């Protein structure tokens, strides 16, 4: 089975993150840039499938030059090779344009299965896997907490707020996964060494036959008009226990969908 895993480099969600003041894109210069957390679960799932069914795992990243660090990191977990779509004209691309570029790259790779994280920690749009499936004419199996493969038949448990749905489709397909699906492995020291020798192909927009005007700020279907810092945390809700405290607490937790 040919599997492509989408990997995005994002600013570390554990640290303070900012938008740039000049063009309102994510500030990557001052951030500690890491692999989008959910993508590690996508990589792990692909590696498990390769272990069980054989085949090949390719990492696909669209991102600036420094995203190469994340590609190496991803490769050190065990995938076979990587493709890096790299072009200055991509800066400022919206989700729709990103999906166009990634779909074009995926067409050159002809995967049976594309696995992605359900969302990235920077934009959190959750739309890209759907857009890709549409552009590729592939099935969209999104938000998986479990994936089973039987020949060309894929079955996922799609995580919902109330529980899960069982969804079945056949390859080719795009599967997006949540962090409930597995426990990603650590890279091994040998894996880190081998990653340095694994092939990483760089593709430009020209290689993909996409005009620079279709992407970036010029080709964007959305624009950030204004942005502001998150307001400081508010005091929160105080529950005084006048005999009904327990009930009120549970009501609050239910309203916030914690229970």
């Amino acid at each position, binding site marked *: 089975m040919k599997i492509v895993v989408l990997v995005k480099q994002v600013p570390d969600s554990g640290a303070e993150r900012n938008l740039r003041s000049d063009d309102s894109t994510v500030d990557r210069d001052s951030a500690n840039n890491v692999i989008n957390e959910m993508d590690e679960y996508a990589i792990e799932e692909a590696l498990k499938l390769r272990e069980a069914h054989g085949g090949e795992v390719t990492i696909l990243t669209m991102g600036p030059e420094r995203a190469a660090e994340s590609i190496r990191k991803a490769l050190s977990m065990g995938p076979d090779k990587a493709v890096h779509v790299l072009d200055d004209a991509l800066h400022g691309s919206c989700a729709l344009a990103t999906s166009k570029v990634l779909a074009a790259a995926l067409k050159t790779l002809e995967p049976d299965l594309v696995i992605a994280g359900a969302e990235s920690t920077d934009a959190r749009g959750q739309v890209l896997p759907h857009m890709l499936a549409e552009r590729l004419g592939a099935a969209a199996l999104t938000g998986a907490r479990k994936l089973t493969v039987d020949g060309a038949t894929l079955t996922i448990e799609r995580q919902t707020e109330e529980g899960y749905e069982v969804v079945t489709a056949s390859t080719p397909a795009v599967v997006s996964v949540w962090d409930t699906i597995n426990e990603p492995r650590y*890279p091994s020291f040998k894996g880190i060494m081998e990653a340095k020798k694994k092939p990483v192909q760089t593709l430009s927009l020209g290689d993909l036959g996409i005009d620079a005007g279709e992407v970036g700020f010029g080709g964007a279907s959305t624009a950030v008009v204004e942005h502001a810092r998150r307001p400081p945390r508010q005091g929160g809700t105080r529950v005084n226990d006048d005999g009904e405290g327990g009930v009120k607490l549970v009501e609050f937790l239910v309203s916030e969908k914690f229970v």
Partner: protein
Amino acid sequence: MNIERFLPTEEAVALLELTQELAEHELAPKVDDFEARGEFPREGIRTLGRAGLLGLPYPEEFGGGGQPYEVYLQVLEVLAGRWLAVAEAVSVHTLSCYPVAAHGSDSQRKRFLPDMLGGELLGAYCLSEPQGGSDAASLTTRAVRDGDDFVVTGTKAWITHAGVADFYNVFCRTGGPGPEGISCLLTEADTAGITPQAREKTMGLRSSPVAQIAFDSARVSADRLIGDEGGGFRIAMSALDSGRLGIAACAVGLAQAALDYAVAYSRERDQFGQRIIDFQGLGFMLADMATQVSAARALTLHAARLRDAGRRYSVESAKAKLFATDMAMKVTTDAVQVLGGYGYVADHPVERYMREAKVLQIVEGTNQIQRLVISRALARQH
């Protein structure tokens, strides 16, 4: 604190990063629970093994990491700063692979090492006996040849990984008294007649199992004899030359953790209207601690670099073990002092560091024995 490290290669930098990540995510969150329960973190050590940390200074052709001691020791240091028992486990395992790696025959190396270095197995090193640790040459565990086997009878004491190890290096008497009568057998833990006894209750390293092991007519195939018959004592001593560097690195890592904690605390704690670190009496104490840690690290890595260059390092290794472990005892004790009453209670890790430091002055040759090694070398010098 971030330590300025001189690492020889880019791959060593990547290895140290991986170690930091593992230490942070796999060790730090678990150490208190496991130490409190006295539970050995077998799974955690498997995770380190899968990452390649259980065979670092051995050749790649046998599944090792092909790393110089200089790098391996800095990995140990990082692990020791989070969980000494785990660093000690890695050090003891690495020591336990040494006899076959350095003195085994080609066929023994091919047969045993890939599994031993593969990360799933754990080793132990059985030299000490109840009647004598320092005077190892007088050990009494006997191995008698019977056909294709040795039949082993005796008792080993304070064996780290007793009951959890997969293989034991057993030093036993195959000949007459004295060092020339000792041989080394690489035995499987599940050999009939090898019985780990009840675990000792220890001052520190409570998650690390230590116990006596009884050998009662245990049959070990003669093809598991490592090196020559009668060559066991020399193997044991050369293994300890390397092992002592591991203990020194553990001491440096532990002391660094104690120093870091004490410094952070002293910058937060106010008395008499100012931070306690700003009292010269306390600030100078921290300065001495920091200097001692750096000196011990430098001495340890110097001995390691001699070893890596194929030079004689046995005496430097003894000096490093002696200095680094005495330093760790002092620095961890001072760290408790810096925290005052808080240092003495288990809510802070420094009381554990202090309990743990003590064992490093005892194992793999007490610090008196290190002084013996060093002074004998001085006496021989001309």
